[in-house]
């Protein structure tokens, strides 16, 4: 098959592509930050001795970990409004879903990092008379954080890839813009190749970074 590659036409869509990149990065950064905040709360609740909070949080985490993000997105956008009577815009529905989905994984990474710190460190901080938040802030989290960073970066990489699912709700992310360009230009090969290359250019340095962190941790 002789195919005449021609990427030149894509230049006229650079505005659309730019918007797509902004949405993809914006949703990634936004939901990683909000996911970390919610994930922290999940981790702390699960580490506390409050049985009910732990049970509720564990339930939420399992629901989000054991169903596909695509199903969650569609459910929150199409099904949740029927239950609650509150119409959500596609962006809001997407933001909520990705936040909770990310949080359920971030929370487990954070919890794992915290419980990996030696019990003797807790003893030492307590014996000095540290309050719970001082112990966390000065002793436990600085040590736990070093162990959490590589898996958190990996999860952020997954989070960025998951933003491509937003296209099903017509959120104008990178993939959705690609679909728009394809339907206008009838050139899916160049368009989707370019979309894939853009994802790669964003993510490759990030995964390298995670690898390097992991290598440094193992010393």
């Amino acid at each position, binding site marked *: 098959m002789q195919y005449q590659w021609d990427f030149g036409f894509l230049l006229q869509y650079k505005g659309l592509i730019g918007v797509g990149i902004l949405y993809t990065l914006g949703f990634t950064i936004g939901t990683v930050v909000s996911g970390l905040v919610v994930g922290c709360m999940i981790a702390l609740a699960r580490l506390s001795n409050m049985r009910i909070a732990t049970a509720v949080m564990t339930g939420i985490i399992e629901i989000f970990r054991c169903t596909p993000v695509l199903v969650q997105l569609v459910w929150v956008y199409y099904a949740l409004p029927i239950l609650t009577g509150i119409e959500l815009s596609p962006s809001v529905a997407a933001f909520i879903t990705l936040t909770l989905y990310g949080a359920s994984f971030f929370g487990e990474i954070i919890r794992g990092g915290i419980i990996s710190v030696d019990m003797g460190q807790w003893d030492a901080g307590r014996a*000095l*008379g*540290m309050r719970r938040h001082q112990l966390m802030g000065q002793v436990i989290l600085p040590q736990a954080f070093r162990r959490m960073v590589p898996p958190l970066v990996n999860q952020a990489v997954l989070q960025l890839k998951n933003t491509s699912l937003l296209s099903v709700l017509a959120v104008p992310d990178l993939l959705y813009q690609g679909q728009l360009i394809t339907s206008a230009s009838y050139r899916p090969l160049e368009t989707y190749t370019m979309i894939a290359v853009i994802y790669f250019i964003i993510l490759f340095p990030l995964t390298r970074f995670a690898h390097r962190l992991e290598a440094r941790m193992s010393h």
Partner: protein
Amino acid sequence: MSAQTMIELVGVRKSFGKLEVLKDITLGVAKGSVVALIGPSGSGKSTLLRSINLLTVPDQGFIRVGEQALDFTGGHRLPGDRELAAFRARTGMVFQNFNLFPHMSVEENVMSGPVTVLRMPKAEARLLAHGLLAKVGLADKAAAQPDKLSGGQRQRVAIARALAMKPEVMLFDEATSALDPELVGEVLAVIRSLAAEGMTMLLVTHEMAFARDVADRVVFMRDGCVVEEGPARQMIEAPSQPATRAFLSHFHNGLGPS
């Protein structure tokens, strides 16, 4: 007990699940005295030590350290985070595995208590830390990371860190058990100098010669009970209870001058 009793325990009980680790312990430590707590592993001596600064919260009993007292007899609510922290800030504790903070330098380790808990300005805490490091013979290691130190040096830093809180009492939980034999002496020397300064100390130890020579009194525990206590030399050399004699017979070849 008199006001000269620095540590006072009355009827302290603790169970882990079905296992009763402390069975009605009553004990007093006079101000400025050194008490060695000996006994076989599993006798509850570490749990007893940890209950004095509430790292292990007793199920029952009364605990007083200096002016502060907490009562755990039936109906009393468990102390909250603030209360526990305030209580612990007045006691220093040294652990078998040092438990230095690995992400802080030696001087930051020593400064951490005063800066975080007492809100001491950093410059003042650094001066304090340097003084204490000099006292334990590590003035030149202030900027080092803990993982660059030998076990004996780490334990001396841990002692300096505990002293930085200006505690009323010091608790040592098998402070030399994790050390290579040739490093034990330097740590015992620091503890000995603290004893000479009149620090009230309670030590869980397997160093019988050290207990005999440095402690004023020795307490022998077995199965969660105090079997016998008395003046150190008499307890180590001529205990009255058969259980104490049987336990000490394991050590007699190591009981030369320390």
